[in-house]
């Protein structure tokens, strides 16, 4: 496949000073010199966005922030513990409808739905952070080395990564989760098991991206130039390849984080997540809620389900916007509004 050309190319570059080479800083690239924080990922894209894309990005960031707050301050926000079945006023009702005491009702086991949804945010965020951190670390290390060195090691790793990549990720996560914990476990071990299961599934994805970037960069003249200069392999990898190869990672992280949440929920739904008394987990709650539906009891399922949807939506919106904004073919530009000024006299100091 030929690579689609950059739609941007019809916009002329700053004129290369033809007579005396012009100083491009003067001709309009001064905007690149900005404080460092303004050039960080996400913030940089936010500043470049307009209209709809800006709306999507902000909506996504707000959703993510809400869940982060819920996760961090769960003990303060949730009226009850995630495994609390009674308080001073006696046992909680089972499958109680939403009321003043139980805003979102209670489950078949007698838990408060609202509290479990809030505590569930904590589980989800912890697992995802852990899983993404682990898979990035492994994926980058393997991808970098495999892509740069090539050879038989590279071929074997690629074949394995491809095989895993093509396989339903949930199935694999189940198998790994069985291996680690035998299926069920407490809070820390459960989160760890889920995170590792998700990691095994995602390492091939990070590996593929970083490796592809590394292979591309390896042929770039600036890396070849370092080779010609006699730089050692570790120096080339750390100074020239690593930072350039990981530029698209913010995007992949957001996309994989949403997949990690769905995988965690899927594991929980099939009963391979965390023990319900050890932590609150949305997927498990939905599993229990499925049979409630037949009786018209909607609140046990709709709230945890909506929590999953909204969190994934938020993360995906951020990821999609980052993707669009970093791809010149997809980025929306400001439309022309007014007749441009005449450029200043073009032929200054022709000599």
């Amino acid at each position, binding site marked *: 496949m030929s690579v689609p050309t950059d739609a941007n190319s*019809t916009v002329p570059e700053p004129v290369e000073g033809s007579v005396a080479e012009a100083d*491009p800083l003067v001709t309009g*690239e001064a905007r690149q010199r900005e404080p460092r924080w303004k050039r960080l990922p996400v913030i940089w894209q936010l500043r470049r966005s307009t209209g709809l894309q800006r709306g999507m990005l902000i909506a996504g960031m707000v959703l993510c922030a809400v869940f982060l707050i819920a996760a961090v301050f769960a003990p303060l926000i949730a009226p009850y513990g995630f495994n609390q079945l009674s308080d001073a006023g006696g046992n909680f009702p089972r499958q109680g409808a939403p009321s003043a005491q139980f805003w979102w009702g209670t489950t078949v086991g007698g838990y408060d739905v609202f509290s479990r949804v809030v505590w569930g945010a904590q589980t989800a965020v912890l697992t995802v952070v852990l899983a993404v951190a682990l898979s990035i670390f492994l994926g980058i290390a393997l991808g970098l080395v495999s892509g740069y060195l090539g050879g038989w090691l590279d071929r074997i790793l690629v074949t394995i990564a491809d095989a895993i990549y093509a396989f339903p990720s949930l199935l694999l996560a189940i198998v790994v989760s069985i291996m680690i914990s035998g299926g069920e476990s407490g809070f820390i071990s459960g989160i760890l098991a889920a995170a590792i299961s998700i990691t095994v599934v995602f390492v091939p994805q990070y590996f593929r991206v970083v490796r592809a970037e590394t292979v591309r960069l390896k042929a*770039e*003249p600036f890396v070849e130039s370092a080779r*010609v*200069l006699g730089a050692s392999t570790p120096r080339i990898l750390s100074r020239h390849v690593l930072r350039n190869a990981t530029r698209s990672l913010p995007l992949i992280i957001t996309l994989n984080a949403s997949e990690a949440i769905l995988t965690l929920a899927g594991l929980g739904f099939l009963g391979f997540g965390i023990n319900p008394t050890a932590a609150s987990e949305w997927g498990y709650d939905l599993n229990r809620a499925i049979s409630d539906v037949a009786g018209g009891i909607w609140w046990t399922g709709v709230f945890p389900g909506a929590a999953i949807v909204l969190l994934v939506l938020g993360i995906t919106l951020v990821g999609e916007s980052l993707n669009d904004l970093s791809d010149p073919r997809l980025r929306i530009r400001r439309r022309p509004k007014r007749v*441009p000024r005449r450029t200043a006299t073009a032929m200054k100091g*022709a000599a």
Partner: protein
Amino acid sequence: MTAVQNHEGAATSPQAAVDIRDLRISFATDGEPVSAVDGVSLHVQPGEVLAIVGESGSGKTVTAKSILGLLPDNATVSGAVVLEGNDIVQLSPGQLRQVRGRDVAMVFQEASTALNPVYTVGWQIAEGLRAHGKYSKKQARERAVEILGTVGIPDPEKRVDHYPHQFSGGQKQRVVIAMALALGSKVIVADEPTTALDVTVQAEILDLLRRVRDDFGRAIVLITHNMGVVADLADRVAVMYRGEVVEEADVRDLFAHPQHEYTQHLLGAVPRLGAQTAYKVTAEAGPGEPAAPLVEARDLEIVYPGRLGRSGFRAVGGVNFTIAPGEVLGLVGESGSGKTTIGRAIVGLTRATGGSLNVLGHEMVGFKERTFRPLRSRVGFVFQDPATSFNPLLTVGEAIAEPLLIHGEATDAAGTKARVRELLDSVHLPTHYAERYPHELSGGQRQRASLARALALDPELLVADEPTSALDVSVQARVLEVFSELQERRGFATLFISHDLAVVGMLSDHIGVLYRGELVEHGAGRQVLTDPQHPYTQRLLASVPVPDPVEQQQRREALAAHRAAEG
């Protein structure tokens, strides 16, 4: 701007095939809108070739695309482009569609991307015909066969059913021209139609375009940066600079008496065949023992390994040459000739597989990186594309300091500062550029910085792989000037790789001509350029269009005779 005023008097001529009046185009960007075309007025007579020349950013391509209304959404257009009585700028999308192809057609720069890879060429030609609604399927196909034959595609009845990837680069461009011809429009806009082609193929396509004008009476708007192409094909020339037409004249007048200082500068910067500026005798060292060569290739063979069970590709075979200390060897050849492969093999980026390649006393066939690494400080390399040869995350100063740090000339960044300043100064860049990032430099500046980096360790040998082919002609002149100056002062030997015979001729003591991986001719620079022995060198030289319409006409006739003689 007298030339523009002159032309405005003639612009009212009623029979003009294209009449552009006060065209202004700007693009919306993240910052201020960028003005690309600023008050251009031009007209093209029927059956004439108007060349619009200019360097990158001059607005020539945007002007050309506006004739077909093919500008992107973020463009704002004012003024008028009148074609057969219609003002393109004012037309509705539906009317524009009817005009495209019927009244004006386009030939694109990259024929390989202008043809849809999943449809046969016949299908694509027929589609254009049927879009204007006069053909049955059978008629359209017959017409496609006919037009393919006209543009010199052999065996058109069969080839009409072939897909684009089954044609060679030159043939693809013929097919694109056939599409433009098929619809019978009076005007054809050709945007850099030969830039992506080798010089021998370029000569053939230029002949075809001349036939398009002479035999079919079409007017051609030729967009190009190549003065040789202008001299070969154009009747009239408009020179664009930063969105404006600074000069417009008959082709012979323009080359003989350029009026505007920019035109003069541009023409002065074009390297001319055989106009050797630096010819040294170092290589032909007089009596006495000649110094041991820095590079010596004996029956050099370079084969790229094939995939699973396929035989490899032999890029270079049986090549012999030497590079003496202080000598500049120019390697010329067309794409696929193996010239870049040889340059890369000398610095160990590509593995030499057979024969012998001795670099600084080290055998490169089957070499080990570890034993060669110490020698790397004695070899410099300049890459073709200045945009990608710098790590975008390092400042120019850091990039130039890299070789110093790697080879222990300095232990930390602070220790390199003085040397980096000195190096920047030697390539005539302001020393404060060390703090800048590569994208903050223009292409020519980057290429000079690249030269500074390659020379940081005072190498004995420099390999320069097409160092100026990505640059505009006036920028190229400056880079070459800096290069010659440094080469003279420091006396390093150079392997200068280029497809441009004129550039190689300007710099080289010796020239080697590569053709399909073999060195077909090798000798002193002047001798190769003025008295070529091998038929391929003769054809190559004859194919290069020179920036002088009078001389070029003679050369063209000579080439035709040469071809006829070759059969």
